[in-house]
């Protein structure tokens, strides 16, 4: 399994299996959590679907409902119930899609705190960490024939 025998076949099989798993997750996950724009484009098809919207912006607020914009491409939908924030605030929510409207019956919703604007800091630190780890990996695994010639094989 870990030898060099049939190396190319093992490599190809591993890549194919990962791709297959990704396609399977994409196909089956579509019914579990469809994108908002798909639901809005075909309301009847997605009637009753459970949605999770990780990031949404409150566009407008009314007495008994509010409108959010989310996704890429962006789609808008009315959400029943009181708004968790004011227009412009970012929220995350789960709910059930209803074709009449269309609208969303919220299950759970949460407004992001102001510190969520610091998300760029997390992303910047994350990128720096990945670059550092990759540099460390290259230090240990890069094949450097010149170094071998000067210092000899480290394994003796």
């Amino acid at each position: 399994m870990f030898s060099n025998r049939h190396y190319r076949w093992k490599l190809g099989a591993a890549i194919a299996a990962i791709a297959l798993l990704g396609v399977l997750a994409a196909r089956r996950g579509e019914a579990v959590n469809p994108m908002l724009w798909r639901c809005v484009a075909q309301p009847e098809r997605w009637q009753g679907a459970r949605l999770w919207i990780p990031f949404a912006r409150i566009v407008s607020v009314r007495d008994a409902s509010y409108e959010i914009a989310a996704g890429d491409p962006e789609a808008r939908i009315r959400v029943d119930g009181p708004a968790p924030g004011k227009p412009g605030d970012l929220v995350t929510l789960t709910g059930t899609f209803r074709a009449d409207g269309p609208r969303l019956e919220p299950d759970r919703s949460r407004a992001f705190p102001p510190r969520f604007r610091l998300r760029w800091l997390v992303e910047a630190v994350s990128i720096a960490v990945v670059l550092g780890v990759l540099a460390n990996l290259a230090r240990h695994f890069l094949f450097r024939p010149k170094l071998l010639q000067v210092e000899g094989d480290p394994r003796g």
Partner: protein
Amino acid sequence: MADLFTHFVAARVPGMFVRDRRLQALLVIGTFLPDIAGKGLFWVLQNHESAPLSTHSIAGVLLVSYLVCLFVEESLRRPGFFLLAAGGAIHVLVDLAKDNMGVGSAMLLLPFCTRGTEFGWIDSENVVLLIPFDAAILAAAWFLERRWRRVQQ
């Protein structure tokens, strides 16, 4: 995806107990593989929601670890595979701590079940608060590791 600094620290601390620096590097890179491979599937399949989660499953972690271990020299492949998989498992465990509104941050039993799993201990937007704690843990780990090395010498 929690922030990658938290993932790094979560793998680097147990990495203190791995003597071979190359295997230690594989453990640490293993903890980034679910996100790196997930981003690859995200771009290739143009699927935002569930395709990236396929690498956050037991089968996904094992397959990606096997693929990556094929790129290291033959003598390191077997221990390398186990450490890459351990890194991936640490990544999934850290992600499970997040609260994704009950939807789940990993599909552990894919391809048999697409049910998302999560512990829901911390709101995903609050991972920024973990950075100072991570830095303190990392500093302590590095300090202890250097002391142990000196004692061994």
